[in-house]
């Protein structure tokens, strides 16, 4: 597989996530679209890690070039899990206060 296909797949998923953030008003859906964008970046990191491994493995078959990128994906998942817990707690608190998850009602700091 050429690396191009993976790049275009990641770009497409990322742009779908951006369209979701821009067109929806439900806070939970916006949050899910952010998760989609994080996953698009993860695909790209794994594909580039395999690309660099393949380039390095022709010279030295025992190399482990590229394992850093996969560990970065692991840490992105760790951060995403922590982010989701705090974000959903904030959304639940917001629902308890204004009985809606519509982001257009979240303008109390403006007044």
């Amino acid at each position, binding site marked *: 597989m050429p*690396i191009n296909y993976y790049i275009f797949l990641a770009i497409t998923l990322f742009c779908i996530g951006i369209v979701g953030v821009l067109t929806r008003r439900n806070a939970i859906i916006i949050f899910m679209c952010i998760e989609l964008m994080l996953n698009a970046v993860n695909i790209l990191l794994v594909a580039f890690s395999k690309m660099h491994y393949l380039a390095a493995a022709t010279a030295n078959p025992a190399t482990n070039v590229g394992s850093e990128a996969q560990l970065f994906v692991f840490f992105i998942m760790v951060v995403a899990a922590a982010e989701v817990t705090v974000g959903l707690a904030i959304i639940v608190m917001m629902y308890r206060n204004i009985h809606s998850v519509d982001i257009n009602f979240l303008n109390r700091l403006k007044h």
Partner: protein
Amino acid sequence: MNITEILFWFLTALAILSALMVVFSRNPVHSVLWLILVFFAISGHYIMLNAQFLAIVNLIVYAGAIMVLFLFVIMLMNMNSDSEPQKNKWLKMAGTVAGGSLLLILVAALKNSEVQYQKVEGAQGTIGLIHNLGKTLFTDYVVPFEISSVLFLSAMVGAVVIGKKD
């Protein structure tokens, strides 16, 4: 077309169609279910790239834990397609045009890049297996690993403090 290419195109089409359905379905529960399908397709891509550890972690953490959390929150709020707030159609159209323009520009900028002559071979190499990743994680990346445990602890405390009824 050999079997690898068929699988690649199938998983790509599945991921993109499910991602579109996440954005465009009106019922939030359906959005969550489509997002789980996106994560399964992405895990399939990881398996085809021989990143088996990440494929399993993606399924357990994202499809297993995070999406269940989303489903619980949606269930607690009793959301359905009737109560779904909608933007007006001009704002929706503007958002779609903005996202599509970004897609167009990124694709046009990267279409003729140097990197496109590089190949990705999924089948060879063992860097994605748990043996190699675990060794690297616990030798070179011990400090970030421990810091991430502190991050989890603070996220847990933060979620409890925010979600507490006062």
